[in-house]
Each structure stands twice: as C-alpha cells, then as structure tokens.
C-alpha cells in the first residue's frame, strides 16, 4: 500500500491548496438548520454576533438534519468545527462520556443557571459539568382541526383517554379520518409510544426504559401497547401511513380529510393560510390519573467539540446564545420556545400554549430517538411501525427490542 500512501500525501497537498479552514480567528459553526426559516434565523443571530465581535470571522455551515446525523461523529473525531448543533440529554452525554466535548461549565454562572432553571441545566450536564448551551425547545401534542371536530359533534378537546377514543368514534362516524400519521420516517410512531408510556407508567419508568434498565417484555410496556391497540382496533389512524413521510401525512389534515395529528410544534410553520385559523392544539390526554404529567420536549443545544481549534470564541458564542435577548430573537424566528426563562416567548398562540404546557409539566422527556441508543431507537421505531400494521405481532416486536436492549446495554 505504499503507492496509496503516496497518493494520499499528494492529495493532502492538493487539499491544502484548495484550502481548508485554518485561520486562528475563524469560528466555524456547523448547524443542522436547513429549513428556510431556521436557516434565516440563525444567519440573523450569527450576523448579530459578528457585529458585536468584529474580530471574529464566523463561518456558518448549514446541513440538513439527516445528513447531519450521519456526520456528527466525524466532526467530533476529526475535522472538528468550533461549535456543533446537537441535542440535549442522552444524545449529548453519549459524546461527553468518551471525552469528545469541551467542558463549558465556566459560562454557567449562578445567574445563568437561574435563568435556565434546573431542568434545562440538568439536561446539559454530565456528572455535574455542563457541556453545552440549549437554545430552544418545543412541545409535542395534538394539532387538530376545530371545524372538523365541530362537524363531528365534538365540543371539547379530549382531556382523557376515553375522550380521545370517543372523539375518534365520532369522527369516524362523520366520515372523517380521526388521526393522520406518516410512518415512513419512523419517528412519528415514537411520539405515540412515548406519550402513552409517559401517561400510563410515568416519567421515571420511561427514563428507566430508555436507559435500558427495564426489559421491553415487562408487563408495563405491554400495557402501553394495549392502550395503543384500542385506537388501532377502532381504525383511528390513517391507512397507508407506512408510505407517507410526516410531511405527506399533513396533507389530509389541510385537505379536511383527517382531523388531528400528534406532532411537534414545528408543524405550525406549515399551516396553510386558509386552514391556519381552524387549527388548534391540545395536550396528550390523561390515561392514568395517578402519574405526574410529563411531556416530550426535545431540546436543541450548541456544543463545543473537544478537538475544536477556536474554543475561546466558541465559548463566547455559546455565552452569546445564552442571553435572553438573543434567545428571544431566535425564538421569534424559529417559532420555538426559548430555554432561557427570561427570554420572551414569541407572540404565537401555539408557542404560548406550549410554554404554558411545558413550564407546568412534572418533567420532560427528549423523545424516543434522543433518549435511547440509536440502535435501539431504530429497532424500536420499526417495531412500532410494524405493530401499527400488525398488532398481533406485538410479542415478536418486543422480543426484537429486548434482544437489542440486552446487547446494547450489556456492559
């Protein structure tokens, strides 16, 4: 392989000529915000940072979410930028544990900790140290068509599981698909699992399950699927969901063919003008009154790779993003809820509802595919999809999950 090494050397030379970022004062930020509105907001934030720090040459690279996920490991182990966008909680700790992240505890002043509150601070912490800054989060819940609910004779948004079931029955009777879902991307199914589990078994059990310390064959897990099956048996979900992406699955909602959808708040940006006024939000109904109310609220964060070249300016940027005024601006642009509690929530009824929902919650989960290992998440979400199509295969699905759990969390 001597030849190939020579060629590699040659190409290294070429690549240097072509030009890789090298200048010391440059701050490279890799972001997973390619949706136009997100991109625009972040570009605005970066511009503002540039103005405040004229000495720093900021470079913002924007990638789409899926390819970003494929690359994050590369960036943490080689070709590291100075700041990466990522997720809070388990997904962050996955990288802080092997020492791939820079400890940024220094920018967590007592004041900052107070502004962010214990929940957010804890999500950014690993063994008492902070490894990043959260910039925003959003709530999950039902987005529904008021007009269709009315048409089906549903006067009030469902508060309990039985309300939901009866709403489903009424909608079906009125010739309306009760719930739309697109499971081609798999993760929309996980929202259902998360919520039924949170409402049935509570946050603590959910976290134990996510961290691999409870077997998936546990009866409490089976109870979740039993609830889920009630809706399936009644035909509450759109058919053909396996061939629809989550984007595709919105269409029936806007066309007036389907009445509701369990989704993150980011969907509100897609509401077409002609139906926006008819859209509304309600939180996932109560199932087991005994358990506290926890919500799925995926939190996005900025981290500094341990191999970053310009950690100084990176931390400066993180501190900048922590500021209430910056988080306010950001939230307005991205239509998300700022994490800094001193920042103001954009004037948007869904976000206001979201903030109210989350601030009064007994706890937050990050979402199935962020709370557990990637491998388990992949197997699990495929399993949920399979279960939705064939509820009778539940045992096999759970066996697969359990086998994976055993391997992943073996050591």
């Amino acid at each position, binding site marked *: 392989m001597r030849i*190939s090494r020579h060629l590699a050397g040659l190409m290294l030379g070429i690549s240097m000529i072509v030009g890789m970022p090298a200048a010391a004062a440059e701050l490279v930020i890799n972001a997973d915000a390619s949706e136009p509105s997100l991109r625009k907001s972040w570009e605005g934030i970066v511009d503002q940072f540039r103005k405040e720090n004229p000495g720093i040459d900021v470079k913002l690279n924007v990638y789409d979410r899926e390819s970003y996920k494929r690359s994050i490991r590369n960036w*943490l182990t080689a070709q590291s930028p100075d700041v990466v966008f990522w997720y809070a909680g388990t997904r962050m700790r996955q990288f802080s544990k*092997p020492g791939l992240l820079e400890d940024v505890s220094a920018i967590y002043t007592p004041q900052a900790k107070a502004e962010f509150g214990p929940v957010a601070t804890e999500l950014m912490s690993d063994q008492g140290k902070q490894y990043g800054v959260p910039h925003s989060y959003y709530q999950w819940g039902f987005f529904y068509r008021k007009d269709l609910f009315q048409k089906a004779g549903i006067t009030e948004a469902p508060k309990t599981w039985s309300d939901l079931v009866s709403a489903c029955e009424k909608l079906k009777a009125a010739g309306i698909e009760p719930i739309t879902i697109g499971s081609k991307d798999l993760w929309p199914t996980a929202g259902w699992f998360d919520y039924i589990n949170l409402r049935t078994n509570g946050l603590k059990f959910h976290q134990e399950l996510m961290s691999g310390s409870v077997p998936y064959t546990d009866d409490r897990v089976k109870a979740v699927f039993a609830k889920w099956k009630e809706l399936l048996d009644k035909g509450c979900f759109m*058919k053909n969901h*396996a061939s629809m992406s989550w984007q595709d699955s919105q269409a029936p909602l806007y066309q007036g063919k389907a009445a509701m959808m369990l989704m993150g708040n980011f969907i509100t940006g897609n509401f077409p003008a002609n139906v926006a006024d008819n859209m509304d939000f309600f939180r996932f109904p109560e199932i087991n009154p005994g358990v506290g109310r926890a919500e799925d609220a995926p939190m996005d964060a900025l981290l500094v790779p341990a191999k970053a070249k310009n950690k100084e300016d990176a931390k400066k940027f993180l501190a900048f993003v922590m500021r209430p005024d910056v988080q306010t601006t950001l939230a307005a642009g991205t239509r998300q809820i700022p994490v800094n509690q001193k920042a103001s929530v954009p004037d948007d009824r869904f976000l206001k509802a979201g903030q109210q929902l989350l601030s009064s919650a007994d706890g937050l989960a990050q979402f199935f595919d962020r709370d557990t290992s990637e491998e388990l998440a992949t197997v699990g979400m*495929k399993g949920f999809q399979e279960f939705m*199509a064939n509820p009778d295969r539940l045992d096999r699905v759970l066996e697969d999950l359990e086998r994976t759990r055993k391997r992943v969390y073996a050591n």
Partner: protein
Amino acid sequence: MSSSATPSLPVVTARPESWWHRHQASITPLLLLLPALAAFSLFVLWPIASSLWLSLHDWDGISERRFIGFDNYRELFDDRVFWTSIVNNIWWLLAFMLAPALGLAIALFLNQSVFGIRLVKSLFFFPFVISQVVVGLVFAWFYNPQYGLLNEVLRAFGIEGISPLDSETGATFAVIVAGLWPQIAYCMILYLAGLAAMNPEVIEAARMDGAKGWRLFWHAVLPQLRPATFIAVVVSVIGALRSFDLVAIMTAGGPYSSSTVLAYYMYEQTFLSVRYGYGAAVAAVLFLIMNVYIAFFLWRMLRREQA
C-alpha cells in the same frame, strides 16, 4: 518506382543507448498503469480489505474499535432483517432476469425500419439515462394511494385504495417494478445492437431451410444474440445486487424493513444504528454473493482471452 539516383542521405546507424532507451519498453507499461492502479488501490482495493477487517469489529464511530472475531456474522445469522434483505435480494435477482427477456421482446418489436423508428428507439431508451432518484420519485408518485395513476386505473375496475409501498408483501415488488423499467431499457439497447450486428446469411440460410417464426428465432436468432444475452444478464445481476437508490428513495426499506435489501440495510446499520462493524459485515456478505458472479464473469472473459 522511378530509378532516379538515390541522393546521399545520412544512413541510420546503431546509436549508443541510454538506460531509459533500453528499458523504456518495460518501464512504460508500469508508468502508464501507475495512476490508474494507485487510484484504484486507494479507493477500491484497500477499502474492500479495510471493510472486511472492520466487519470483525464492533465500532460506533467514536470509541475504540473492539475486535470481536466473527460475532457480527454470528449475529447476522439470527437477524430477521438480514434474512429479509437476503430474500428480497433474491427476489430482485429473479425479477431482474425478466429484464433481458422483456428487453429482447421490445427490441424485436422495434427492430424494423420505418420512418422515425430511430427516434422511437431512443425515446424508449430514456428511462435508463435518467437518474434513479427521478425514477424513484416518479414511481412513488405512481403508487400513491390518493392521487397515483395506479389507483386511477384500478378505480376503473372498481378496486380502491391499493397502496403497494405500504404493504410488507407488496413494497419490494413495487420497488422492483420501478427498477425494472430502466433495466429493461438497458437490455433493449443491448439487444438492438446485437440484432443489428447479426449475420444475415445465417438467417437467410435458416429461412432457406424452412425455419419460420419461433423455430427461426430459437435456432438462428437467439444463438447469435448470445453475447448480448450474456452482457444483459451480467448487468442485470449487478443492478439487482447493487440496488440501493430506489429502495432508499421509495420506501427507505420499509414498512418495517420488509422491502430492505443488503445494500440498504448496511447503510441503515451504519448510519442509523451507528454500527459500523455490523454494517461492514452486511456489506461483506453482499460482496461475497457478488463474487460468485464476478468469478463467473472473469472466468468466461479470461477463457476467451486465452483462446
């Protein structure tokens, strides 16, 4: 040839030779091969070896690689999705064997000389030229239960709401059909070339012997098309085993991995489940399967070379 006197010109004489002069005939081929070989070694040969080695490891892309011997392969053996991929790859292979047959049928249909036939032929070839991304897009749309043409047509027969990409039994075949479309076009072109290069005397002789229709086709035409058939089968096998684009675009292996193939499953294991070693093991299996065909092709080529 005039017999004019030869003007005196310097005579070519033996010159002393430099080292380069004496050895250029043996060095030149090496020199010419070097760039291609270097590029090929770096980006093809070494990665194959590296992948095979990686398949004996457990690696998540960040922590240390852990050597685990054949554990990945042992796990594959118990992996339902892996077997689904194998079965689906076999379906792809079998179905793709239709491509040479259908390609030949279309080639025969178009092998006439009427006005504009050249344009028709090249239009028939279109599906092969366009990207699989576009093909996948078009077919995903074709199958769409709400507004796809398939359902428009079926509705005319009173069948409603068929959604092939949703169904664990139908998805693979729906994707295969999309894959066949360009593949048939490819085979068609191969056969059109084969038909054009046919020795007309053999056909004439067969006609003189009274062969007609099927018998003529079977005994005089098909044997002459053997080279085209060989290539058509080889490219179809490769196309079937490499199939990734359409699966990724149309179903992403779903629903619940029922339409996945080895090529896609390795991608999924690597990037979604972040199991590099396991993904490499899936790729290695695909590589081993493909090696059967590569060996067959090489054997045939080299035999021809020796003849």
